[in-house]
């Protein structure tokens, strides 16, 4: 496009009034604005911040915080140790040791003997939640995740299950019904050839 193209629209900066050019009236106007805020907070309690430990922030329902391992109606972990979450995890922070399910659990072949998530490596992307075929792992709305050591931040099965106990009432399980019929069971999913 040429400089003298008639289609070019020239935009002039707004002209400054005499007061603008002296700066000082504008400075005074600015001071008035901050003064209103200062007085508002100091005398009329107009602060807009959340006073955290006393006032808890409620995150949106889609917020992804600390993980939990869901339990079924009998109190057993829903996880069937299919390793899909560990495979899907881009940060490789999930470590599962599966074992053959006890004979008293006829509905599954395997269960997680150990289920460990390194919360420090986790990027809270939610891929594990997406990958899980039995809706056993979920990300909760818990956001105040702190610890005094690195070891404290490595969550084992017991801790992940206890997160479920803590958040069960506030956040019901997203899927309580069994997976739809057409969907492959974990074992089928693992056996099927990778295309």
């Amino acid at each position, binding site marked *: 496009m040429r400089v003298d193209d008639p289609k070019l629209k020239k935009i002039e900066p707004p002209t400054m009034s005499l007061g603008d050019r002296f700066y000082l009236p504008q400075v005074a106007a600015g001071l008035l604005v*901050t003064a209103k805020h200062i007085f508002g907070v100091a005398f009329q309690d107009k*602060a807009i911040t959340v006073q955290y430990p006393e006032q808890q922030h409620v995150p949106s329902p889609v917020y992804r915080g600390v993980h939990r391992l869901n339990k079924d109606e009998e109190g057993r972990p829903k996880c069937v140790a299919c390793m899909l979450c560990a495979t899907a995890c881009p940060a490789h922070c999930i470590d599962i040791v599966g074992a053959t399910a006890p004979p008293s659990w006829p509905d599954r072949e395997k269960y997680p003997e150990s289920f460990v998530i390194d919360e420090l490596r986790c990027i809270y992307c939610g891929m594990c939640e997406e990958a899980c075929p039995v809706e056993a792992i979920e990300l909760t709305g818990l956001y105040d995740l702190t610890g005094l050591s690195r070891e404290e931040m490595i969550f084992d099965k017991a801790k992940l299950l206890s997160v479920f106990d803590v958040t069960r009432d506030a956040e019901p399980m997203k899927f309580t019904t069994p997976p739809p019929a057409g969907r492959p069971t974990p074992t089928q999913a693992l056996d099927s050839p990778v295309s």
Partner: protein
Amino acid sequence: MTIWVLIGILIKMLVVVGVTQGAVAYLILVERKIAAYAQDRIGPNRCGREIGVPFALIQPLADGAKMLLKEDVVPKYVTKPLYILAPWIAIATAMIGFAVVPFGPVGPNQIIDFQIAPNVDIGILYVLAVGSLAVYGVILAGWASNNKYAFIGGLRSSAQLISYEIPLGLSILGMVLIAGSLDMNRIMAWQSRHVWGILVQPLGFILFFTSAFAETNRLPFDLPESEQELVGGFHTEYSAMKFGMFFLGEYLHVITVSFITVILFFGGWDVPFVTSPDQSGLLWAIVKVGVITSKVGLVILFIMWVRWTLPRFRYDQLMDLAWKSMIPLALINLVMTAGIVQLVRTYWV
């Protein structure tokens, strides 16, 4: 000079150093609160809550402990003697300015002279002179850091400080001409007998106050900080207490500048129709110290208020403002004042 005068001066020095350092610690707390309020936040309000201290009043102690206990990193590539010297220069130049600042009434009829070095005839010149020495701290810090960001930061900070020295000095001269003295006590006495400086020198006041902001590196002229462009400017390589000393020096400068503003343009210890330079006695001394300190407190609050209102200047705008607007205006102000003072002296006095 008798031994008692010397002891008195030493006591005054200790009091001034102690009070100013303590004031700086609490001014930082006040500034943090004002910053929070201006941004609709609450600010520090927890420190000391467990032990029953209200309003986070021990926050300055926590800040100080943090400064002292943080790891003091000295990079291997710095020029060590100068690197260590620079923050000391920043503090020392800010401290020695207080030598001639009267923080109360001074004179032959007073019990105590509220000034470390009383009867210095060139008080204002001395304050300006030692105030401008702060440039050495900045430029040495920038150079000794052996880092090009720090060096460029130091150079432009010193350019800024030197540029604003000129309107600062020129804008004071009007008041000096009117009062006929460089001694701050006589300037206060003149204002007490006539009118406050801001009424006879309004333009001088605006110019002085604006350059004072630049001299103390306060917003909107805090180019030495330059986080965006120069990763922190001249103090990029400084950490822990060494960085804290630059900060302390800056705050001490704010206190000095506020004192000078009050002394030159707001009558110092003067309250119209109440005080006069002839009053003596302990009661009047206390009243006058109270008046001048509260005025200084208000000026410091105003400086903080401005900080959280105005955005930072761009560097070329900063230089334009000093050289193209403020220096010509200060010169016009000076020439006009000189002419008027001469006319008044010739025809009316």
